[in-house]
């Protein structure tokens, strides 16, 4: 087994592992989460409840879990990747049968103490499993059709299940995340060209199918696409989110309107102001400077991930770290594109900032994996 190749003695053990954590990432994540607390305090009208306080507790739990995961040897993680993937797909199936419906979409299982969104978990386990797969598969066979179809099936299965929930945003994130790993692992260019071509075909098919009996998406998803293309067409109806969001962002200007002075969020013009659209409140109250600062924090996290990945000689660890970095990037890039009118409103939260339990905990678990890879890197 390949982990035997490592010089185990050079890897830290016991509590000394804590010293070898990627501390810059932890500091950056804490800084980003603090921005979130600040904004949640602001959108609640200057109050810890109902959002800022629970978010802080979850962050504390998430941080603890992250460090716990970081202590687990990365080769163990690789060995359980398949099980983790299988478990999360089973949970997705469970949602299909036992899940509760929130906001018109069936997305979570009530575990009593918390609501679990298996689709969140799947984003991570998929990355893990694909990283393990490409660690295992022979580099020479990597571009052979049979060895390409297997990961495609691995990606398509949870994609299909999340699409059924229906959760277009997560489904697309899975596609991009999984595709990213395949790309990194070195699958031949031609496949990606084919997929992009196929996707273009699918998009046109999606539009073609509209209004017919074989309609591929729900009506509300079509409407979101419509309003993405032309938000002004329905400023008080479906385009309301985007229009108000852009007004909030734009009215922030260079320096913003001041903390807790954003009229758009305070007067409820912003929809989902504590979850998906929280970035607009930040941009309204702290302006371009505030927005760019948060973006910089995200980019720094990404830079540390990429450095850690590229300096890691373990293929699984490297792929895993890159995959987690990519997922993190997809989260904030899609969310920001969405609120700035560059992408349709697909319901992707702003990582570490948006209010929401499972998203934050799962993200911190993912960074636990990244930390584990970092701590246990071959030296």
């Amino acid at each position, binding site marked *: 087994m*390949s982990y035997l190749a490592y010089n185990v003695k050079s890897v830290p053990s016991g509590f000394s592992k804590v010293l070898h954590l990627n501390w810059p990432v932890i500091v950056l994540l804490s800084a980003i989460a603090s921005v979130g607390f600040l904004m949640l305090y602001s959108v609640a009208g200057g109050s810890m409840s109902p959002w800022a306080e629970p978010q802080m507790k979850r962050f504390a739990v998430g941080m603890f879990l992250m460090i716990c995961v970081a202590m687990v040897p990365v080769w163990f993680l690789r060995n359980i990747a398949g099980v983790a993937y299988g478990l999360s797909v089973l949970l997705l199936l469970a949602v299909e049968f036992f899940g509760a419906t929130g906001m018109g979409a069936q997305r979570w299982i009530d575990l009593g103490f918390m609501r679990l969104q298996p689709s969140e978990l799947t984003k991570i386990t998929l990355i893990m499993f694909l990283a393990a797969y490409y660690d295992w598969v*022979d*580099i*020479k066979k990597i571009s052979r059709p049979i060895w390409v179809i297997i990961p495609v099936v691995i990606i398509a299965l949870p994609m299909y299940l999340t699409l059924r929930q229906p959760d277009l945003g997560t489904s697309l994130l899975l596609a991009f995340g999984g595709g*990213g790993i395949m*790309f*990194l*692992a*070195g699958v031949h260019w031609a496949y990606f060209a084919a997929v992009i071509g196929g996707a273009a075909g699918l998009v046109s098919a999606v539009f073609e199918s509209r209004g017919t009996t074989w309609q591929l998406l729900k009506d509300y998803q079509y409407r979101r696409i419509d309003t993405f293309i032309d938000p002004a067409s329905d400023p008080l109806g479906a385009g309301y989110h985007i229009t*108000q969001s*852009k*007004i*909030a*962002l*734009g*009215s*922030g*200007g*260079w320096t913003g309107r001041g903390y807790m002075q954003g*009229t*758009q969020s305070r*007067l*409820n*013009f912003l929809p989902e102001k504590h979850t998906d659209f929280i970035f607009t409140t930040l*941009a309204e109250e702290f*302006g*371009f400077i505030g*927005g*760019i600062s948060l*973006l910089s924090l*995200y*980019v720094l996290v*990404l830079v540390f991930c*990429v450095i850690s*990945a*590229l300096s890691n*000689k373990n*293929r699984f660890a*490297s*792929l895993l770290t*890159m995959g987690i970095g*990519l997922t993190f*990037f997809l989260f904030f*890039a899609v969310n*920001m*594109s969405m609120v*700035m*009118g*560059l992408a349709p409103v697909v319901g992707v939260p702003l990582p570490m900032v948006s209010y929401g339990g499972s998203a934050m905990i799962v993200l911190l678990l993912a960074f636990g994996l990244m930390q584990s890879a970092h701590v246990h890197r071959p030296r």
Partner: protein
Amino acid sequence: MKRSAKDVEESASILSRRGLILGGGMSVMTGILALRMRHLQVNQADQFRLLAEENRINIRLLPPARGQIFDRNGLMLAGNEQNYRVTLVRDEVDDPEAVLQAIARLIPMTREDMDHAREELRKRSRLVPVTIADRLSWEDLSQVAVNAPALPGITPEVGLSRTYPRGADYAHIVGYVGPVSDYDLSRIDDKDPLLQIPKFQIGKTGSENKLERALRGKAGTKRVEVNAIGRVMRELGRDESQKGANVQLTIDTRLQNFVQARLAGESAAAVVIDVETGDLVSIGSAPAFDPNLFVRGISVKDYGELTGNKYRPLANKAVQGTYPPGSTFKMVTALAGLEAGVIAPDEKIRCGGYTELASRRFHCWKRGGHGRMNLRDSLKQSCDVYYYELAQRVGIENISAMARRLGLGMRHDVPMSAVAGGLMPTKAWKKENRDKDWVIGDSLNASIGQGFVLASPLQLAVMTARIATGRSVTPRLVKSVDGVETPLEGGEPLGLDEEMLRQVRGGMFAVANEGGGTGAATRIVDKSLRMAGKTGTSQVRNITKAERARGVFRNSDLPWERRDHALYVGYAPADAPKYAVAVVVEHGGGGSTAAAPIARDIMLAAQVDGMPPLSAYPSSQRGRIRSSLGKLNIWDPDDPRPPETQA
């Protein structure tokens, strides 16, 4: 499986290469995000800042209080009273029906009120307050206010609503206000934003309508911050509204009430004018209606009763109604003849009961004829033949010109609805409007105020005042606006010879006071209060030969709408005129029997500024007068109690 070092090397280099490519892709995307952020927040910031302000700031109009209307003595005729009401915002309640039921348990609400409230809630926007109960007592409002925490979406409010404390007495003069309608908006050219307020009250008739600009006032504004669902969060600034100007009319409420009470039961009108100033001290039109009904929103049933009434309560007969003036016109013909010099006051003309002209007989009202008449007798006994002769001598153009000098055939500028211009025909008028040549018969008819001649009671009062003074008395209804006295108009001498006027006035004195005068039965015995006047009975139609054959001679044999109009014009005191009056009783029969008694009572009331003194009546009539005056629906103008609605 074991891998070769070469494979590991290769896979690591692919991973690094692809990792850098992906990193590059992410950098490009991040760059796009930063540029987009810059575009929205820096380049377009001003535009979005403006949009955010537009989102947030709402400008609300503050309606001004409407100006009040007072009578000449400062009694309020139209005011604003606090109106307590309860409104409900649909959006703030889950179950509006439950709230309605809860409200109905607190305050009296009829089934119609409830249905109306439900209808309004269904029709109006979910965000606007809908009035569900109106005109509540303070106690009822308090009930709601105390229970407000248990009644979501409910707000007790205080507004102003128009009130007419004098009720029906001023229905036609002051008129009433009502909510602005689409028809109003299409008809009037007014950019005032107040008119865009739903249900904003504007003057619909009478002075309320004609003096709208002065009474309305100027809108104020308040800037409020609203949230996304339109709820007001706080007030940012306010620019107070300006109350409308107060208006004082020339009407005397005590006399106005007497006139309305005296006219009650008839379809009649009376105008009293101060001959020195032209002030209209009373403008009566009966039947009247309670204008407060219109402010509250008149029921279909009540409105149907008003429009279906053959006495036409909604019409202001004093200024809108035009009637053939009949014999009250004879002073005009007499003055035209005297001024043209075609007759001397003492010259006698024989009345044989008719004048035969172009093989047509023009009858005098007295079949047997009056015998030889001079000017004074012709007025006193109202001989028609005398005026037929005069008409032939002086011609229609002179008569018409004299009528105009005396204020007939012209529209007087008083702020009331549909003020009529009447009609004083000339040869050119007939050619133009009837496409026929003037014939001498037309002149004969016109000479006794029949035929084409039409005049309103207001015009007849002005005519009488001008004869009484020899000056161009011009009617005035508005005494002051916002404390600024309305300048008196007219009053300059008409240029009529004083001797001529004395002769005509002598005839009018004889009518009202001398034995044999058509108005002698209604004479006033108190010398200081005596009046001079002229009766008139104007035919609505001729009695046909067939009817004559059936034995229909008298008015009382005809159905009401075909009976003669009864008229009376007069002034008093006879020797030093102060007031002039014109009375028209629609289809009342003879002027001396139907109109003259009313005119006498009104003239006495005007002169003594109170109830007519019994001592002014001939002793033989006092008993009857006492009982009839006692039955009048008179109320003390100083009594704050609202009057009963008159029928």
